[in-house]
């Protein structure tokens, strides 16, 4: 197996709440190699969203180390973190999170504005990616005019536009019906075959089946971490 693209060592995260310090993550260790497709599972409040936020460089750990692509994330300043979110990581959310005022093309091209790319190039790349997720001809449509499945495809296209090494998806199928979910998962599988590392949070076991590896969180700790094939065996 190649070098880990994500390496987590002894990660702690606690929040200050009105009831005192709440530990959301307790000593989490995890390595994810380049090209892996990992499903993260666990009940609500098990710490998986917190974990994803840290993976996505949106949040910083209270203690422990996070190496992304060989870099120590804790040592980076805000602009460098923004650059990581822009180039190295692609984010897909449960609620799609498209900007409603913009056309699909502009939504997909948005990260490229922050990369400082010229308009012509931005639009060309965005058009190519929309075609890749099966939405050719929808460039000028507005997000509220298309279905949820289509919106999630646009969100995936946006996440992919800077050719990130890692795609982080937080319950990407949570708002979709089973048929559309299957399509989205198929899209993830094909992206994974192209070499993109995918980390996907889900509650649904059948979605997790598509990943190569399943990591289960409970009360802020990883309680199991096994390849999918083995799990099928035992099941």
């Amino acid at each position, binding site marked *: 197996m190649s070098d880990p693209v994500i390496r987590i060592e002894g990660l702690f995260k606690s929040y200050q709440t009105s009831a005192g310090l709440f530990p959301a993550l307790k000593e989490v260790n995890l390595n994810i190699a380049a090209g892996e497709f990992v499903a993260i599972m666990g009940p609500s409040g098990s710490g998986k969203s917190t974990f994803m936020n840290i993976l996505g460089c949106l949040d910083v750990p209270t203690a422990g180390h996070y190496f992304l692509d060989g870099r120590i994330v804790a040592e980076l300043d805000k602009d460098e973190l923004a*650059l990581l*979110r822009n180039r190295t990581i692609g*984010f897909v959310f449960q609620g799609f999170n498209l900007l409603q005022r*913009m056309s699909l093309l502009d939504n997909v091209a948005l990260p490229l504005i*922050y*990369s400082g790319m010229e308009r012509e190039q931005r639009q060309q790349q965005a058009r190519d990616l929309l075609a890749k997720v099966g939405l050719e001809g929808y460039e000028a449509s507005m997000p509220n005019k298309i279905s949820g499945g289509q919106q999630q495809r646009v969100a995936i296209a946006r996440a992919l536009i800077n050719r990130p090494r890692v795609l982080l998806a937080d319950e990407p199928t949570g708002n979709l019906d089973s048929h559309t979910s299957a399509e989205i998962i198929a899209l993830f599988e094909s992206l994974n075959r192209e070499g993109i590392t995918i980390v996907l949070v889900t509650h649904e076991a059948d979605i997790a089946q598509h990943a190569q590896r399943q990591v289960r969180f409970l009360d802020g700790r990883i309680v199991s971490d096994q390849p999918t094939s083995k799990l099928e065996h035992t099941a």
Partner: protein
Amino acid sequence: MMFAMLGEAWRAMGANRLRTFLTMLGMVIGVGAVVLMMAIGQGAQYAVKQSIAAMGSNLFILVSGSTSAGGVRSGSGGGYTLNVSDADAIAELPGVQATAPIHPGNAQVVYGPNNWNTSVIGTTPGYLDARSWPVVSGNAFTNSDVRSATRVALIGKTAAQNIFGDEDPLGKTFRIRQSPFVVLGTLSAKGQGMDGRDQDDTILIPLTTAQRQVFGSQFPGSVRMIMVQTSTQEIMPAVERSMTELLRQRHRIREGMDNDFSLRNLTAVADSAAESARVMSLLLGAIASVSLLIGGIGIMNIMLVSVTERTREIGIRMAIGARERDILMQFLLEAIIISVVGCIIGLLLGIGSALLAETLTGTMVIISGSSILVAFGVAATVGIFFGFYPARKAALLDPIEALRYQ
């Protein structure tokens, strides 16, 4: 990058047109008010300056004192306590540049079928110097005209128009109260005086001619007024003292008795008029600036609302790689665009209403490049100043909190 950001700002503003328009309106009214008020204020200042320049600089006017006959007091200028030799004596004082005895009056003037009542001033050639009032065509009358009381006249622009119509008045003979006069020259236009009267509705004739042939005089050689011009404004108080002393001596006024003449410093009157015009101009500007400030606060208010409303959008942008300064720029640009566009519209509106005010009321307005520049500069500063706080608030949002915001 900048271009893309401008496009984004434009789109964000377009998404809520009415709100953008109303926010802009604050700026439009503020800038429009500043431009209009400055135009009116500067116009008023200019008009005052013009009339001061038209009056002549560093001027005193000596007016004969009142007389009292049988308990009836005549009022200032009623008596003839000043005379031509007083004027000559004053002319010898140090610092005095020109003196001109004046015998003013009104008379009916006739030329062919036209007749007109106008102000006729009997004076000496020194009057033209003291009032810096050049002859534009023909010649001024001379001291020898004054000595021999010739019937020649210099005619002001308005008087000429009313008496001669389109004809060239030079060399024409017309009558003032039955006596024929020849037009020797025409005077340059002076416009409105400090008192609002048209100074060009005037005919100047030699002093002696006025006294002997037009108005008549009980006391030959006496005059109602003497105009005195000093060489500089600084020596005016000194000249005032020496002039008073000289006249009291000449008129044999004993210690403790009142002057039989009064002395007015016209330049001081003009200065106070200029000062009040300047204060008015400042006041107008200050009032207008308050509306500009309120416009700026309106921008800040709306930008704060906008940041709150778009918290989730800010979170999304941060998640896909926007840096703090990208978010800051985005909101700052919106504020700047609103204020600059508002400023341009306000400028046009202000200039338009200033011109309209000029046409409707005849008030002089001056739209100077500097006032436009100041309004523009202030508007841009207001945009940056009041846009910065909301933009910074947006840029410093925690991405996770922002993403969770509903």
